[in-house]
Structure formats: structure tokens, C-alpha cells
């Protein structure tokens, strides 16, 4: 009886003593003050409609399931009319998400929410093919570690097929403007003189004739 009481007291004591330590271990430590290396990146932060984003995550738990939310907003400056009106209802986002390991079955995500599984090092790569223009903010949340990271990409309207117009039309300097006024003035005066000369000649010929 006494022994069991002692054991009980010891157990309670240990539990009380261990509780703050356990709580401390469970509580996430505040991060150090310098900003960390970003853990969610896009290979190219801007793509053109029809192209694919490659989203890479690092620093998640080994083999952790990571849920990814996609928030889509309009481009900051109104996109050209072409294509955007047709797609204004386009709430569906076709996904071609693939896991980092080749051959793994692609998750079938909801348009703006899907999950991926990190590899043994806590990394993942997933591709994402948007079907309308806009700003895409991806937020990844590790389902075990609770770690979150976000990144934003831009989807611009399709590039027109013809190449951009050249900006230079040769490199010759523009010349000749500076003598424009004197030339015009001189020409005008010479012209007026010629008219007067012809008029006086005609007049004299008439008078003589």
C-alpha cells in the first residue's frame, strides 16, 4: 500500500516535473531574428498562358504531406482585352501536379487546393498549369510540422507569335535640322524675288509690245 503510494507520488512528481519540459519541446521555438532562406520558390516567377509553373518546396518534414492553396487575383494592370473576357468565368484550374519522385501517381487536386508529398529530405517539386491570367499566390502548409511558406507568380496573356518589333532603326544620328530655318527663309525670299522678277519682265514686254 505504502509502496504503491510512494510510486504514485513519484509518478505524479515526475509528471509534474516533466510537464513543462514536454510542453516546451512541443511548443515551436521562436525563430532566430535573421530571415531564413525562402522555402517555396518558382523556377520562373512569371509565365505566359499555356506554360507551366514549377513550384519547389524545401525544409518540410521527411515524407510530410504538404497542402498547397492557390489564391488567384487579377493582374495589377488590366490585361489586354484579347482572351481575358472569354476566360473571365474561368474558376477551374487544370492541374498537372506531379510528385518529386518520377512515376508517383499525381494527386488529383481541387482547382485551388491540392496536396503533395515531400521526399525523405523534406523537399518537393510540383508543376502547375494555369488556364487564366492573373497573380497566383501559392501557400504550402506542412500537415505535420505546421510549417508554412508562400510565393507569388504572374501569368501573362499568351505571347503573340510574331517577334517583338525592333526598337532601333539604325544608329545613324539625326542631322540636318539645325539649318532648316535659314534654308526655309532663304528659299522663301529667293522665291519671292523670282516672282517679282518675272512679273516686272512681263510688265515691260507688254508695255513695249
Amino acid at each position, binding site marked *: 500500500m505504502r509502496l504503491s503510494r510512494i510510486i504514485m507520488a513519484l509518478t505524479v512528481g515526475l509528471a509534474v516535473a516533466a510537464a513543462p519540459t514536454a510542453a516546451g519541446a512541443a511548443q515551436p521555438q*521562436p525563430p532566430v531574428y535573421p530571415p531564413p532562406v525562402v522555402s517555396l520558390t518558382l523556377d520562373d516567377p512569371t509565365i505566359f498562358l499555356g506554360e507551366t509553373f514549377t513550384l519547389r518546396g524545401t525544409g518540410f518534414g521527411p515524407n510530410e504531406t504538404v497542402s498547397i492553396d492557390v489564391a488567384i487575383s487579377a493582374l495589377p494592370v488590366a490585361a489586354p482585352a484579347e482572351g481575358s473576357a472569354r476566360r473571365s468565368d474561368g474558376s477551374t484550374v487544370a492541374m498537372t501536379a506531379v510528385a518529386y519522385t518520377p512515376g508517383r501517381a499525381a494527386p488529383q487536386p481541387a482547382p485551388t487546393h491540392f496536396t503533395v508529398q515531400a521526399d525523405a529530405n523534406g523537399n518537393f517539386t510540383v508543376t502547375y498549369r494555369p488556364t487564366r491570367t492573373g497573380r497566383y499566390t501559392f501557400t504550402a502548409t506542412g500537415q505535420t510540422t505546421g510549417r508554412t511558406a508562400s510565393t507569388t507568380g504572374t501569368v501573362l496573356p499568351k505571347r503573340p507569335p510574331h517577334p517583338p518589333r*525592333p*526598337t532601333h532603326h539604325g544608329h545613324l544620328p539625326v542631322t540636318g*535640322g539645325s539649318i532648316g530655318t535659314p534654308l526655309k527663309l532663304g528659299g522663301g525670299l529667293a522665291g519671292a524675288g523670282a516672282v*517679282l522678277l518675272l512679273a516686272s519682265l512681263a510688265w515691260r514686254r507688254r508695255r513695249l509690245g
Partner: protein
Amino acid sequence: MTQRDAPHRRRRRSRRRTRARVRRVLLVGLVVVSMLLTAGGWVTLRGWQARSHLVNAAGLAKDLSAQVLDGDVARAQRTLAALQEQASAARGATGDPVWWLGQRSPYVGDDLSAVRQISVAVDDLARLAFPTLLRVDLASLVPTQGRLDVNRLRAVSAEVSRADQAVRRTSERLRAVPTGGLVTQVRDAVTALTAELDQLGELTSAADRGARLLPPLLGADGPRTFLIVSQNPAELRATGGMFGAYAVLRADGGRLRLAGQGDASQLRHFDPPLKVDPESRRLWSDLPGRYPADVNLSPDFPAAAGLYREMVRRRTGTTVDGVLAVDPVVLSYLLGVIGPVAVPDGPPLTGSTVVRTLLSDSYRDLDTEAQDTYFARAAAKVFEALFTKTVDAKALLTVMRRSIEERRILFWSVRSEEQRALAGTRLSGQLPEKDTVPTVGVFLNDGSGAKLGYYLRFSATLTVGACQPDGRRELRLRVTVRSTAPRSGLTESVTGLALSGDKYTARTFVSVHTPSGGAVLTGRLDGRGTALGGGTDGRRQVAVANVEVGPGRTRTLDVTLLTGQNGAGTADLVLTPTVTPWTTQIVTAPRCEQ
């Protein structure tokens, strides 16, 4: 005979009539042509006179500006009188009825009208703006014996405001002159004058804003309290450097006094963190709301100042009306004007050595506690000297202007009307809401937890590239980071947390903010693709690259950007001010044809 003579007579009569008519037509023609020639000659003569008056006026304006800068008021007054005479003569020469008719004639009308506008603009400036600017006593804008005469400043404010309005009106009128069909000389004159007016306008609007804002800020309408924060560029942050030592400044009736000082480390950290703007949180998580050292990870100074104010309020109970940020380079400029300042228990501060003393030597020679004390004392002593010593007003204003231009002095007021007045100035520490030319921001944040920023050298080249069919334009940005850090011998207080994995390798996060409405296409580090973090800053897209550079090494970050729909052939860079100024180059191109 009579019958034979009749047709002959008729013919002669008709010939005489024709001849008379021809003579009349010719005479009228001759009169008209002579009148036209006379008018043309008159306009040419008057134009020539106007031109020489304007050329004289331009020369005099240059003299005037030099004399004003030299403080030679008597000579400047004489120059101004001569300038007014010349400007008025030019206006007179282009103001007569013949010129007025000429302006309505085809072909040369637009040129004559542009010359008239130039003459009017120069005359308006000479009569309305220059005399005021000459009357304003620069000395009234700097404190003497720790006090600024706010009443004198108020009086000056009204005059400066009128001059500013005159400059702005003139500038707008000149801007309305269509330059498309003008002959080259006239067009060049209009363009040059517009550019000069823009410069003058910047000066007068800054003076106007300063003269209007300073009295209330200096406590003319009741006491005010401010935080002066020292940014430490040895540990880089987007607005310049980590907020280190701070001082509380009280202003009352134009008199300023130091009401306390402290250090960011005394503010500890905040858990739960303060509320951070969502765009900033997506890029930097809660760090800006958690650590006083991180409030300025984003380049928006008002947001950083607001967070820091709240942190100081929560820890010390002091509520301030605004935050003024400066850096050691500003101190070096100020010391150059006020002379060396002695600091107890430490080396004296001089203009040429202060940056090294504060950002390098003190970390080498002092322990952490002694560093804090020394920084706080140094700030207090410089401040005291600035407000008690008699300083050269002109030199002080010049270094202040330089500091503001380099974005080393930033100010935020808690009052929205004052904040609105600051909007768009370099003092406000914000990227412009709307770009007049495509503006690219390149901001730096240390990621190593070290004080290696003192050893880093930065350069940026921005090249305006191809026009895109959708009206955008490609920009190519190249940022290089070179480290002059030694390979050994730095103390723990410099190498700090060494998060890059090597004590002497600096990790810098380079944030590239696109022009408004623009996009980041690709990023490459030393020619290879690099992982870019991404976010937004209003209408700008943000990409963040991690650039780690070891001692003696240089790394090159290439970022391709798109502007918003803006075909401008030029662009602008806004950069984090660093210990050694950036080397920058902007390669422009012709405007895109629409």
C-alpha cells in the same frame, strides 16, 4: 476709214483695259508681297532680338545661381535686376501685333508661338520666382543655439509657397507647348527650359514642403516627440540597415532636446508578434512584427516606423509622433560640417573616420555592452553638437540634401496630413505609387546574422530592352555583390550567427521589385538558374534571391523584368543605401513606337 478703224480702236481699248487690270493686279501683288516681306523681316528682327535677350538671360541666370550659392547677395541682386530687364525685353520683342499675327500664320506659326511662350516663361520666373528665392534667408532654415525660429520660418513659408506656385504654373504652361512640328533650335530650347524648370520645381516644392512642415513638427503648435533611429548598414535591411540605437527627441516651440535614449536589444522580442501587413508577411513571415531588428525587412519605411513606434511604446510607455531614421554615413556628412566631436570612453568622431569607427573598429575593440554604450553616447554627442554649435547654414543644407537624395534620412509622421505632404519625396522611404518612368527597386537584407555589410560592395546595371507587342518593355537588371571581407581576424560580434555556414561568407537576400504593373521573368545567379522567392508589393511583383559571397569573391545576379504597359525608353533604380554607395548605370533606349 471709220468702218476700218472701228475694230482697231476697239482692240486698242480692250488692250489698254487689260493692261490697266494687269497693272492693278501687279500693284496689289507688289504691295501684298512687300507687306509680307516687311512683316517677315520685322518678325525675323524681333525674333533675333528676343533670341539675344534670352541668351543673355540664360547666362545671367547661371551667374545668379552661382552667386546665390556663394551667398553674395549684393551681386545677386544686381544680376537679378539685369536678368529681369533682359527677360522683359524678350517678352516685349515677342509681344507686338505683328508677332501676334505671325503666330497665326501657317508654317512658322507654331515656332513663333513657342518662342513667345519661352519668353513669357523666363519673364515670369524672373519677376515672380527668383526675387522670392533670393529673399529667403537660408539661415532661417537651420537651428541656432538649439532652437529654430519658427515664426521666421512661417513668414518664409508663405513666400516660398508663392514662388513654388509660380514655377509650377510656368512649368505647366511650357509643358502644354506642342513640340512636334518645331524647328530643332526652338524645340531644344523648349526641352532644355522644361528640364531646368523641373529641377527648379523640385527645389521650390521641397523648400515649400519643408517650410510648411517644419514649424508644426518643431512644436510650434504644441510639443511633439520623435524617435531618432540609427540604421546600421553593417547588418543590411531594406531601408538601409538594422535599427540599432534610438533616441527620444522632444520639440517644443522650435526648441529641441534629447529626452532619452535606448537600444533595440532592450526592446527584446514580441510574442505574439505585432500585426504585419499581409504582403510583407507572405515574404518575411511574422519576423517584422516579432523582432525590432526586422521591422524594415520590407522597403516600406512608414510600415517599419509604425511597427518600431509600437514596440517602443509597449516596452517603454513612450508614445511618439513620428520616426526619423539616419545612418552613420549621414553622421559622417554632418561631422564634416560641424567638426570633430569627442565621445567619452572612446575615440573622437570625425567626418572622415566615423563610418569606420562605428561600423568596424567598435566591433573589433569593444564588447557588446560597451558597443551599445558607445553608440548611444556617440549619437547623443553628435546631436548635441549639431544643435549647440554655430554651423554654416549653407553647408548644413547641402549635406542634408545629399543625405535625403541618397535616402539616408527617412521620416514618418503619425499624422496623416503630414504624411500626405511627404508622399512622393525621398524622405518618405517608399517606392512611388505610380511610376513616372518604370522604377525598379533593389533592396538588401542580411541573412547571415552578422555585421559583414560593412565589407560588401554593390553595383547595379539596368538595361532597357526590347519593346513587347502588348506595350510592355523588357528590362535587364544585373546586380553584383563583391566582398572585401578579410579571410580571418574578425571578432564574434562581426561574424555573429554565421547562418551562411561560414563565418566570413555574407548571405544577402536581394529583393527585386518590378516597375508598377510589371513582372519578373527569370533570375540567374552567376549564369545559372537560381531559386527565387516571390511576393507582391502593391502593383509590383517581388522576387527574392539568396546571394552568398565569400571573402574576395564577386557574384552576379541577372534578373529579367517586364515593365507595365509603358513604352518609355528610360528607367529608374531605387536602392538600399549602403556603406559605400552603389555603382549604378542605366542604359536607355529609344521610346517604343505605339
